[in-house]
């Protein structure tokens, strides 16, 4: 039992000092939530990967192409239902800083193998029927104001046109995605258009296929299937590596570097810095209360109560800061998601993230409070009373 009033009155005694500490804790906790949400976003593709899709890519790297002929061969493998080609186009709209992905793909198969891709405006049939058309994710469409029927000029980098002009794609439809493994930022167009243009000499660039996405039949032994496909091309011409979609996405995440490790390192650094700030405030505050501690002990308050008094101050201070940080993270979630849209689709402040932040807040409160609280607890009443105010 300790005077709770003293907890708040002592915190309010040095308003500016406590306010600055609370603000820095709030910002740090907010930052931590945001960083963790980025990791969650990066991981979304792995978590939400489809279990009935396999990816075939060159064993060398994602940037090495496989022969076109593989498609027909793969189609004959039993257990494979349907195949979609994906080729990275790597162009840009007006300016290189306007980043969104474009892929050359098999229109019909894409919409069939990826049921999460939902046409929300325009028509799927229009897209499938017109080889010069494309579909665009709703987020990118909104960002650049693309409407169904517009022509979007994409300046190529890997596949320049011989006439030097941009590639024109007519927007047949806009799509949204039901799952986080497909973002809403991408432009999909017809592989046939790209292939034919290269064939006719209207454009140049590497030929072949970046990845094949296979939809497997229900109940198929995927492990066996993956080994079978890998074995087919063991002796070339291009050795392949077949993975599940989840593995493929994970590899993609690790390509950017070990982001979770990086983010955790920053997060740990931020937390240590903030712990030191909170500890500093608590040490100063506790030192100023030394004589009060002596008075309380003289009046008969037990050592444990004194410990509680100082611990409570630390927990309240850190709790308010952390609470504000957590509230900020949740409130700014839509804004952050929009802001990070194309770079980190799937930004989400999950309840796990919030609980982790709450746990860290309490941890900082305990760590910042424990040393001053222990010191006050063990200090002899006479010694404490002698402290100059």
């Amino acid at each position, binding site marked *: 039992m300790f005077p709770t009033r003293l907890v708040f009155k002592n915190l309010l*005694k040095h308003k500016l000092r406590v306010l600055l500490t609370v603000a820095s804790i709030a910002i740090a906790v907010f930052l931590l939530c945001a960083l963790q949400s980025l990791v969650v976003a990066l991981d979304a593709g792995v978590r939400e990967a489809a279990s009935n899709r396999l990816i075939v890519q060159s064993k060398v790297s994602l940037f090495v192409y496989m022969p076109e002929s593989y498609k027909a061969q793969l189609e004959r493998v039993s257990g494979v239902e349907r195949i979609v080609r994906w080729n990275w186009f790597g162009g840009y709209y007006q300016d290189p800083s306007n980043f969104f992905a474009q892929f050359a793909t098999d229109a019909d198969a894409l919409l069939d193998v990826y049921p999460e891709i939902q046409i929300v405006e325009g028509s799927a049939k229009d897209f499938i029927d017109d080889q010069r058309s494309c579909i665009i994710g709703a987020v990118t469409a909104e960002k650049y104001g693309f409407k169904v029927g517009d022509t979007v000029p994409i300046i190529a980098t890997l596949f320049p046109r011989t006439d030097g002009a941009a590639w024109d794609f007519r927007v047949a439809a806009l799509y949204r995605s039901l799952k986080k493994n497909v973002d809403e930022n991408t432009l999909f167009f017809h592989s046939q258009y790209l292939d034919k243009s290269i064939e006719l000499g209207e454009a140049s660039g590497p030929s072949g296929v970046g990845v094949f996405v296979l939809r497997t039949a229900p109940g198929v032994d995927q492990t066996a299937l993956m080994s079978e496909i890998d074995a087919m091309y063991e002796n070339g011409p291009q050795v392949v590596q077949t993975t599940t979609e989840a593995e493929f996405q994970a590899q993609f995440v690790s390509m950017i570097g070990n982001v979770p490790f990086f983010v955790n390192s920053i997060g740990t650094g931020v937390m240590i810095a903030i712990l030191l700030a909170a500890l500093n405030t608590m040490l100063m505050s506790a030192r100023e209360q030394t004589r009060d501690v002596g008075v309380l002990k003289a009046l008969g308050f037990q*050592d444990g109560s004194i410990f509680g008094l100082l611990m409570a101050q630390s927990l309240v201070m850190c709790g308010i800061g952390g609470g504000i940080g957590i509230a900020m993270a949740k409130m700014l979630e839509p804004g952050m998601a929009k802001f990070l849209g194309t770079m980190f689709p799937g930004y989400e402040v999950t309840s796990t993230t919030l609980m982790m932040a709450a746990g860290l807040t309490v941890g900082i409160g305990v760590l910042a409070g424990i040393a001053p609280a222990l010191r006050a607890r063990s200090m002899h009443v006479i010694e404490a009373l002698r402290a100059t105010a």
Partner: protein
Amino acid sequence: MSTPLIRLRGVTKTYERGGEVLTVLNKLDLDIEKNGFYALMGPSGSGKTTLLNLIGGLDQGESGEIVVNGEDIARMDGADLATWRASHVGFVFQGFNLIPVLTAQENVELPLLLTNLSRSERRKHAEVALALVGLSDRRSHRPSQLSGGQEQRVAIARAIVTDPMLIMADEPTGDLDRKSAGEVLDLLTKLNEAHGKTILMVTHDPAAASRAKKIVNMDKGRLGDVVDNQPVAQR
């Protein structure tokens, strides 16, 4: 003479400083009667504060017994001693020692948090104590908004709010001007005479000491005889 309220026998307190042992209280014997008002005098460094702290249960010596109302507080552990202080002793310090962030009323209520009183009872008790020291109108002032004399009267209200039998006052008028000192001494006298409190007061001021019923002199860790104080008028 009836059994004393407080009985000290062979009380010794030493400090070690740089390998040297300093005997601050040297085998003290002392009897303090119930409802007594004692002034403890003596040169600086003679051990007055140390003795007061031992009797008030703030500190403990190496040997000897301090029996208060039948309990030997020299043998109690820290937690029991704290509980004992809360119900038996009120302290008045030279430097007032109010909690700066609390109002007068809150300061006085502080010791009552250790009792079973309800919130409204605590408030009422604190108001009565503040009225007794004549500071009802200052109850929402913080210590920094009070004069030294007023601060010390709030401290006295805090010391008596739990109705302890003992009041330990270490140079209660040491930081006060003559008029404020007089008011504080009037209060202590009233607490002793009208409320039956046993008071032990350390002071350097002969005028303050003259308000006590008995005077004890201390020198170099030893106590002189307890002498009856002659009312000023009769000297």
